[in-house]
């Protein structure tokens, strides 16, 4: 339970970065931290005490395995996170080229 709570605390630090910071790179870093904490949370949900890694091998003393389903889903999620991060960073680089700043309050044309 304490581990879950620590994971949620990590999530809220990322949330604070996204909501409060004005620098675009800081916002992107906050998004990355949120993604890390969610991946870790899913893997924590599938952990089992005295389990072994979900790989079948000969002559294993421990028979119980940890849950492989969250691991498979998180594997997909990590790779998608890379794609999202690259896309967001490229948009930030483009904005820097156009406006010369990462400060979101100075980018007037983004206002609706």
């Amino acid at each position, binding site marked *: 339970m304490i581990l879950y709570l620590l994971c949620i605390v*990590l999530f809220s630090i990322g*949330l604070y970065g996204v909501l409060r910071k004005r620098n675009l790179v800081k916002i992107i870093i906050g998004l990355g*931290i949120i993604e890390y904490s969610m*991946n870790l949370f899913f893997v*924590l949900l599938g952990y089992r005490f005295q389990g072994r890694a979900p790989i*079948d091998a000969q002559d294993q003393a421990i028979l119980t395995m940890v849950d492989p389903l969250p691991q498979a889903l998180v594997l997909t999620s990590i790779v*998608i996170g890379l794609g999202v991060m*690259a896309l967001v960073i*490229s948009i930030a680089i483009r904005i820097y080229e156009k406006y010369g700043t990462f400060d979101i309050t100075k980018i007037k044309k983004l206002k609706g």
Partner: protein
Amino acid sequence: MELHILLLFMIFAAIIAIEVKDLLSSVIAVGAVGFALCLAFLILKAPDLAITQLVVEILCLIILIRATIKRDLPLVIEGRWVFNTISTLAFICLFLFFAWLALRELPRFGEPIMAVVKKYLQEGEGRTGAVNLVTAIILDFRAYDTLGEATVLFTSVIGIMTVLRRPGRIKKK
């Protein structure tokens, strides 16, 4: 116990990454969070995830450093500092409250439900021939998920190429 220490280290590094002024130091601190996550995956008996996280983390660091190097931080004057901070903290407290309500309904740590995965565990090796059960799930039982992942990746590549493309020259009359 190791997991607690690793998670505390991750929280510490995340706070540094959010709060430090220099952008490059911030990127390096977030790299520390990612590598600690890689270690946590190893402790949680997920070696495939650890390998993938390592590769993805290195790529992310390269991309982030590309974005931040040689770019000076503009002087940010915080307007309405008190109001912004208080509203953000209030929102986070609300989020923590609901998260706590939800966490009480979850199974305890170390005792997963494993209702869905029971079938995979029994039939996995016989039906797919894969020794690694994560591979069996990701490439066989749930192959459409992986197809969707590949679609998302290629869409992201197309998006990056579109955004970072040099604009064409306008022809002079």
